[in-house]
């Protein structure tokens, strides 16, 4: 069996090695990628566009009215994948809640990490609590900035959501929310479902034309405001439904990831009443 695995590894290694020798060299990706600026008319231009990525770089800004092409790929051109990916997170949150069901119902707390309800933890230090609270506010505002400006600067729903969720881990270290674990989980779970419902609701809102159709980008006011082509400062209210989708994903990712961490942390501190041992 061990010999077989070694043979398999060697074959795979050879495959991949031959593969990378035949691939294009790093740094010379497919397509010509040059974005011409100063085009007088704002129309779709497909001259010399030979691949999907060329099209995105050349016309993405005009079509989706977003400066960040990655965001327009994530939420507009490949929005369906993003829906699937948000679903994966939702599934894992449900799975963790299902698997640790007996733990979560249990009242007996064994570990020093989680203080019994109504009591202060033993290792609480004012410096840690206060310091992590300040850090929490700062990380959270950075995360919100990333989510809201996803279509202008690097960032977006996933990135902002994950940054915000890492702040939740900080709260766990300082025992700021461990006293209200059940309530926290309920609130988080509600907001996670809310984010997903907003996302799929926005998808269904354009169903007269097609699912996840960027219907706001084709008006010329509000979210559909026409932006200049090429480098520009960008507007917060632009890019059609992209900022809304980004916000929905941000909410979903923040609360979903936080819920995973909080649930696992909560579970690690309680004794399972249905345990086999």
């Amino acid at each position, binding site marked *: 069996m*061990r010999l077989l*695995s070694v043979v398999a*590894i060697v074959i795979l*290694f050879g495959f*991949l*090695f031959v593969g*990378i020798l035949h*691939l294009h*060299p*790093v*740094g*010379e*990706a*497919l*397509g010509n*990628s040059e*974005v*011409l*600026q*100063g085009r007088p008319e704002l129309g779709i231009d497909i001259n010399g566009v030979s691949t999907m*990525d060329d099209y*995105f*770089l050349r016309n*993405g*800004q005009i079509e989706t009215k977003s*400066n*960040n*092409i*990655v965001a*327009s*790929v*994530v939420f507009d051109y*490949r929005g369906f*994948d993003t829906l699937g*990916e948000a679903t994966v*997170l939702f*599934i*894992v949150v449900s*799975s*963790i809640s299902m*698997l*640790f069901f007996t733990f979560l119902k249990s009242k007996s707390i064994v570990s020093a990490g989680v203080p019994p309800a109504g009591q202060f933890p033993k290792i609480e230090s004012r410096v840690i609590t206060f310091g992590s609270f300040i850090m929490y506010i700062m990380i959270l505002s950075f995360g919100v900035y990333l989510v809201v400006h996803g279509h202008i*600067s*690097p960032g*977006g729903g*996933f990135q902002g959501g*994950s940054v915000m969720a890492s702040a939740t881990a900080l709260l766990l270290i300082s025992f700021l929310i461990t006293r209200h674990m059940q309530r926290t989980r309920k609130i988080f779970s509600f907001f996670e479902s809310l984010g997903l419902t907003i996302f799929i609701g926005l998808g269904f809102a354009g169903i007269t034309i097609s699912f996840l159709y960027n219907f706001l980008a084709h008006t010329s006011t509000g979210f559909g405001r026409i932006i200049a082509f*090429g*480098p*520009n400062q*960008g507007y917060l209210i632009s890019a059609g439904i992209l900022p809304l989708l980004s916000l929905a994903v941000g909410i979903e*990712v923040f609360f979903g*990831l936080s819920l*995973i961490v909080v649930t*696992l942390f909560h*579970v690690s501190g309680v004794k*399972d009443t249905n*345990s*086999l*041992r």
Partner: protein
Amino acid sequence: MSAIVLYVTFILLLTIGIIALLFKRNLIKIVLAFNILDSGINLFFIALGYRENAMAPIFTPAPLDSVITMVLPTPQALILTNIVIGFATTALMLGVSVLTYRNNNTLDTRKLRGVEEYD
């Protein structure tokens, strides 16, 4: 051109990941190995879309030249998705390995194998 070092790194990470997946016995270590493998694939995707002397596909900070080049946006979008999926997989695998430990009092695959009971 000589940046093929990125592809080589990808192969090395993948190989490290696979070897650890096959030969490590600890359930949590296997999850760690899977994470390394996944990071290798993510790196490969990003390296595929890289262009030398180009800029990130974001117009806000772009220079006001007449022609600018950018790296490909699609691999970045896909890898964003894959990172979150990888985290989700990790969380689920850790959850079931914790339950396995609770039920069997071991994380060693050798001790877990071959238990035949009809419950």
